[in-house]
């Protein structure tokens, strides 16, 4: 940036590039500083929020404590464009740099070599603190062709996941000034995505720890293989949560692109631990049943991703399913249908990805022991009905599999044959998904659960005895047309796990068994 003083040698204007986040998307922000000899004042304009206003105090202290001068002049900082709301402390660094350039204490060394942008929060001692969403910022800068990014060292690993962007980490304001004057200087080495993915895979709870529950294990395997949503019903302590926690371990490993996508969401939500810059395991989110609808699907004055987005490409586990607020449960419908959630606010409308596998768990009745082998249920009949009625038809309709998880008997727990490990199950799931991808090629879906009714008609081949069974079920169980489609979809997944080319009567029968259980309805 040319940064010539005016002929009088007085007022000087400096510009530093930066980036603002709204949702997951970055927007360019130009930080301009104007310093003139007049009654001393420091003002920030350009629609700043409270955190940006407070930036003045941090910048002032950081500059003085970094052995720079804070002259007694009128300083005006403009964050352009003026109609975009600027939030958070990430503009501290570009404001300080623009100020130092404007007062002639630093020189922008990027002339003619393409600009570098700066983001970072300043501590009073001049140290640089990490900001949220560094990965999303870096991606956005790269897309726009910005050459490099100056940012706090704690964010460097995350930002260097973006290929083609030079990343200049700094621990202090003085480091950042050195980078700016050198027009970059020494860049952080680009991250080795494959190595990070390899290292991070494999930890987490394993299915080997679960004794018995053969039926539930099978149902979960089917659900994961076809990305079907599933409802687990059982008494307290039966192991519903234990089973659900082991789902990410049997899902196909994250691809590099998927890992980046998940990491971006975690980064924006400020949930990324600095020592692990890449999320390498599929997320498992288990919000408490008191969660608000905003907490679940995202939103707020500054829209943030909700649990459903944090579970993107992973598992959203809702324990005590009927205890959730109705508003929260109903808000789940759009993301379950579309794989994303749109949040509309007065000034903006944002979309967060939310392609999840929903795993719900509930007790069969308020006391939890309805249908138990040994204990009696103490609930009056109307309470049981009320409990089940809290789940609306449209929501239950999006759940393909319902499965009972009974209490494990001591005999089962002593079973000398060790249970299958997650790795073995995952191998079958991966094989079944590959079969599906080949069949679904060109439809936009990646798993059986996402087939449209038309896909079901054209792609799923049901054998004659399978059709006969389906017809009988249609009459006897009074299945709706949509329910029939779902039975076929799940049967297709079971056939894929089997390695069978067509859907037989056995597959249909197993699929039907998953509809008849759980909440009791069809």
């Amino acid at each position, binding site marked *: 940036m040319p940064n010539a003083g005016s002929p009088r040698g007085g007022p000087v204007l400096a510009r530093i590039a930066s980036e603002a986040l709204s949702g997951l998307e970055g927007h360019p922000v130009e930080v301009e500083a104007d310093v003139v*000899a*007049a*009654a*001393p*004042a*420091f003002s920030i304009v350009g629609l700043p929020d409270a955190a940006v206003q407070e930036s003045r105090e941090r910048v002032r202290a950081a500059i003085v404590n970094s052995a720079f001068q804070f*002259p*007694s*002049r*009128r300083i005006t900082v403009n964050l352009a464009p003026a109609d975009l709301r600027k939030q958070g402390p990430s503009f501290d660094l570009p404001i300080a740099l623009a100020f130092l350039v404007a007062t002639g204490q630093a020189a922008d060394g990027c002339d003619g070599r393409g600009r570098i942008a700066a983001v970072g929060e300043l501590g009073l001692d001049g140290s640089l603190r990490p900001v949220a969403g560094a990965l999303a910022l870096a991606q956005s800068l790269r897309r726009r062709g910005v050459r490099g990014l100056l940012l706090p060292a704690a964010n460097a690993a995350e930002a260097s996941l973006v290929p083609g962007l030079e990343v200049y980490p700094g621990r202090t304001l003085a480091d950042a000034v050195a980078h700016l004057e050198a027009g970059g200087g020494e860049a952080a080495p680009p991250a080795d995505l494959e190595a990070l993915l390899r290292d991070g895979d494999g930890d987490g709870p394993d299915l080997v720890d679960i004794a018995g529950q053969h039926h539930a294990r099978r149902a979960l395997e089917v659900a994961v293989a076809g990305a079907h949503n599933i409802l687990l019903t059982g008494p307290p302590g039966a192991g519903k949560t234990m089973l659900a926690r082991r789902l990410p371990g049997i899902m196909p490993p994250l691809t590099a692109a998927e890992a980046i996508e998940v990491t971006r969401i975690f980064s924006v939500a400020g949930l990324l631990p600095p020592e692990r810059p890449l999320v390498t395991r599929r997320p498992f989110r288990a919000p408490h049943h008191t969660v608000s609808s905003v907490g679940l699907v995202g939103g707020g004055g500054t829209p943030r991703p909700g649990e459903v987005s944090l579970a993107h490409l992973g598992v959203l586990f809702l324990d005590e399913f009927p205890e959730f607020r109705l508003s929260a449960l109903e808000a789940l419908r759009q993301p379950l249908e579309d794989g994303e959630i749109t949040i509309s606010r007065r000034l903006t409308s944002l979309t967060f990805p939310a392609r999840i596998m929903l795993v719900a768990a509930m007790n069969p009745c308020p006391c939890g022991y309805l249908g138990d082998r040994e204990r009696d249920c103490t609930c009056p009949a109307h309470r049981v009905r009320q409990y089940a009625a809290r789940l609306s038809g449209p929501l239950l309709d999006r759940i393909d599999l319902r499965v009972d998880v009974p209490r494990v008997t001591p005999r089962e727990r002593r079973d000398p044959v060790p249970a299958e490990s997650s790795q073995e199950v995952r191998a079958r799931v991966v094989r079944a998904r590959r079969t599906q991808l080949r069949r679904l090629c060109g439809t936009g879906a990646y798993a059986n659960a996402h087939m449209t009714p038309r896909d079901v008609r054209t792609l799923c081949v049901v054998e004659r005895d399978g059709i006969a069974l389906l017809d009988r079920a249609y009459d006897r169980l009074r299945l709706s047309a949509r329910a029939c489609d779902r039975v076929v979809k799940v049967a297709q997944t079971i056939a894929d796990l089997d390695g069978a080319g067509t859907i037989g009567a056995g597959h249909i029968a197993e699929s039907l068994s998953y509809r008849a259980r759980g909440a009791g309805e069809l």
Partner: protein
Amino acid sequence: MPGYPCRMNARQALGRAAEDAAARHLQERGWRLLSRNARVGRGELDIIARRGTVLAFVEVKARRTSTCGAPEDAVDPRKRHQIARLAELWIAARPWALEGVSDVRFDIVSVDAGVVPCRVRHLPAAFTCDG
């Protein structure tokens, strides 16, 4: 207090003496006084001084005892705001006053009159337009 009309009360006399002491203090340190007790509208700026490229608006505060805190604490946000506004008006009326000036400052000179001789302290850039 010799040399001043006897109509002046003790408080005014203290203020006057403190301003004299402050002015002397500044001059001894190379400041050129541009104006004393400059009236701007309904307000007054105690001392306006220049040294090199620095233009300073100086508020003088005197105290006999320190029971109410340091003298500079008596320049509260309201007073600071008032001084800043008066200074801007003063500059606006004399744009040439900024000729060759790089920094404009609001200083406080505190005078502790509880000791003899009185103790004078100069606080450069004590505040800005925004507090």
